[in-house]
């Protein structure tokens, strides 16, 4: 089977060729069959590879296929080689699995769009590039995938180019991620200059001989991380992601939530060994991740556009993953990447279904009371929200709890504290979203109100198919390890931790990590209680503010003192108001201002300055031939003069 690794990326490429070249002549039905079929087949192939990998003993779980030698010059070789190891296999399943469901969903969502073939061409091209990125065995091929996903993202954000906002969003995404990509490219050149190879495993071998904290390693890891910051939209290069929501919703789900934006996380995880050798870079990763997590979540508290809330939530969750990577909790980061891919994909698709139902309205202030009218969407989104909030036993709880627990136990108290704050904010804004959208009175436009309808089967089925893993995936991947396994007296690491162990054990050794005793009735239990408590707290607070007209406690006949407390709504609403509206609102307003004016301003400024200076420099070109001659003479004098000065020294 391992000679067939190439099939996995080749299938989506086939889709690109068919839909790209013949798209205008094919019926929409044929286009969707091709577009979804190739990704489905790729998912099956990925499953086959996964099965083959599991059959191998843990430490030999590497499949490698060399397609051909791309560049060979002297002692430098770069091969087009695909690598499947436990880490890339996990990513493979996420990309093809979530990707397939989103392709299917798109059949319904994009129905009747005049760019139908173009859409599937881009989406398949994206899947291809993402698979190349994941499977790459060397930095150059990784870069190929990296540029490819960036290009597709750019094309898909601006997909509805008739809208100016979409075109501008595409432009912004382009400029911002470019900044990161420059760092990434320079990082690769430095890798080549330092190690003389671009093969990832050879780089690992060579890096192992360098001392910990080596300057070159620090520079390389920081530069590569700059690429990750751009691609995964971390502070300060995050500005493009919220605007990227101008693209079609399935695109937001696939590219800007589940897969492409996690490429940065994957990159750092894949290169964890290099980062383990560069403690400074690890600290930077943790800091950037932590700051982004809390910053983005605070903006999410007050957004009214349903997709923007989810976008800021994505930023925040990605920050979580980077924070985890930075403290060395690599398994936990990948765990969260996986669960997040499913529940955030679900939430985005759900929001797309909502937007469809209320006729392309994205403002949550014009929704409300939709729960009964679009039940499938409601229930699946509710599952997604509970999952992301971190309520057991849904998926988000396990991965988030593992990050928090690891951060605490590895001594990164500040990361843990940020994590807890973000957890409460996450629960709040998610249930604010659910409340504003589905609960309470309808605020839908009266013209649209009677025409609200549930989405077709082709859209709701993928929702449910994503909802199932959002419920069980965490439990499944954590079993039989902590926390639940320990409760039942099981031993050993969880499924995912055990699976990824061969990839990480060397790095863990370098960091001096050792298997910490898991004490469900000790510190770990307390940590779990705290994280569940804050999640519930945030949820409850949102529910009180946005969920109900009458507090539930008042409905029951309650004792007097309880009643009085209850009349004051347990003073909860006051506290609630203070914490989330007054304080939270201020923070959010500040963060929003900072984001919109300062960071955005800088990014737009860079673009504008470059354009202006282009126009300005062009004015030197006066059209007068004698000015040009003068330029030559002055150039000569300056050059010869400075040369004689250099040589004369």
């Amino acid at each position: 089977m391992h000679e067939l690794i190439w099939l996995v990326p080749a299938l989506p490429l086939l889709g690109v060729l068919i839909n790209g070249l013949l798209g205008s002549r094919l019926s929409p039905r044929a286009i969707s069959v091709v577009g979804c079929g190739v990704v489905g087949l790729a998912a099956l192939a990925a499953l086959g590879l996964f099965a083959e990998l599991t059959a191998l003993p843990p430490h030999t779980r590497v499949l490698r296929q060399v397609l051909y030698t791309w560049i060979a010059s002297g002692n430098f070789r770069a091969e087009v080689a695909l690598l499947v190891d436990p880490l890339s296999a996990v990513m493979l399943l996420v990309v093809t699995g979530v990707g397939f469901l989103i392709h299917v969903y798109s059949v319904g969502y994009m129905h009747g769009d005049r760019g139908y073939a173009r859409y599937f061409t881009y989406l398949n091209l994206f899947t291809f590039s993402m698979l190349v990125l994941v499977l790459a065995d060397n930095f150059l091929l990784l870069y190929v995938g990296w540029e490819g996903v960036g290009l597709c993202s750019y094309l898909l954000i601006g997909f509805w180019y008739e809208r100016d906002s979409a075109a501008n969003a595409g432009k912004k995404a382009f400029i911002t991620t470019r900044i990161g990509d420059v760092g990434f490219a320079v990082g690769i050149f430095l890798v080549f200059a330092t190690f003389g190879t671009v093969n990832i495993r050879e780089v690992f071998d060579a890096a192992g001989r360098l001392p910990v904290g080596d300057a070159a390693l620090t520079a390389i890891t920081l530069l590569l991380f700059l690429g990750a910051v751009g691609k995964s939209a971390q502070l300060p290069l995050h500005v493009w992601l919220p605007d990227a929501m101008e693209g079609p919703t399935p695109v937001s789900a696939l590219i800007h939530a589940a897969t492409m934006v996690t490429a940065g996380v994957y990159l750092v995880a894949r290169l964890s060994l290099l980062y383990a050798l560069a403690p400074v870079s690890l600290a930077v990763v943790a800091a950037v991740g932590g700051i982004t997590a809390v910053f983005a979540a605070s903006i999410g508290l007050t957004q009214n556009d349903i997709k923007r809330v989810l976008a800021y939530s994505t930023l925040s969750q990605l920050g979580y993953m980077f924070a985890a990577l930075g403290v060395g909790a690599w398994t936990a980061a990948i765990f969260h990447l996986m669960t997040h891919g499913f529940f955030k994909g679900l939430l985005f698709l759900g929001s797309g279904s909502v937007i469809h139902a209320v006729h392309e309205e994205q403002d949550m202030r014009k929704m409300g009371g939709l729960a009964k009218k679009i039940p499938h969407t409601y229930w699946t989104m509710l599952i997604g929200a509970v999952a992301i909030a971190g309520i057991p036993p849904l998926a988000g709880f396990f991965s988030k709890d593992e990050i928090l627990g690891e951060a605490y136990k590895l001594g990164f108290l500040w990361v843990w504290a940020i994590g807890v704050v973000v957890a409460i904010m996450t629960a709040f804004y998610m249930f604010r979203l659910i409340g504003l959208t589905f609960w309470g009175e309808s605020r839908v436009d009266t013209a649209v109100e009677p025409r609200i309808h549930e989405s077709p089967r082709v859209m709701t089925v993928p929702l449910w198919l994503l909802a199932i893993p959002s419920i069980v995936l965490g439990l499944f991947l954590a079993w039989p390890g902590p926390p639940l396994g320990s409760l039942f007296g099981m031993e050993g690491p969880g499924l995912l931790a055990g699976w990824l162990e061969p990839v990480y054990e060397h790095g863990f050794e370098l960091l001096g990590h050792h298997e910490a005793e898991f004490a469900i009735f000790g510190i770990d239990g307390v940590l779990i209680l705290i994280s569940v408590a804050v999640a519930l707290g945030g949820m409850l607070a949102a529910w009180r503010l946005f969920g109900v007209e009458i507090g539930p406690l008042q409905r029951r006949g309650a004792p007097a003192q309880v009643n009085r407390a209850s009349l004051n709504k347990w003073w909860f609403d006051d506290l609630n108001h203070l914490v989330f509206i007054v304080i939270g609102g201020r923070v959010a307003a500040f963060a929003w201002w900072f984001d919109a004016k300062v960071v955005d301003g800088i990014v737009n400024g860079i673009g504008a300055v470059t354009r202006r200076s282009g126009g300005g420099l062009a004015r030197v070109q006066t059209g007068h031939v004698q000015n040009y001659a003068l330029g030559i003479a002055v150039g000569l004098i300056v050059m010869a003069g400075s040369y004689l000065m250099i040589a004369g020294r």
Partner: protein
Amino acid sequence: MTITLSHYLVLAAALFVIGLVGVFIRRNAITILMCIELMLNAVNLTFIAFASHMNAVDGLIFVFFVITVAAAEVAVGLAIVIALFRNRDTVNLDELNLMRW
């Protein structure tokens, strides 16, 4: 006073610079063409000075090449100027900025 190599070189450099300045300050295309010719001839003088200083012939042969090349250049240059003059009735370089920026 004997005339040394340096004298020739300085003379040639002076001629070169005169040509150079002419290119900057004149406005007539033909005059500029002549200034460029002056620069080329200054170079010829340099070649000859060096060649006779070193008692070598190759420098002298180069001069023939340069004269030939200069002749070809003038031929082509004048043709271009004439073509321009037919279309625009001017050889003033200040009026030649159709394309810029």
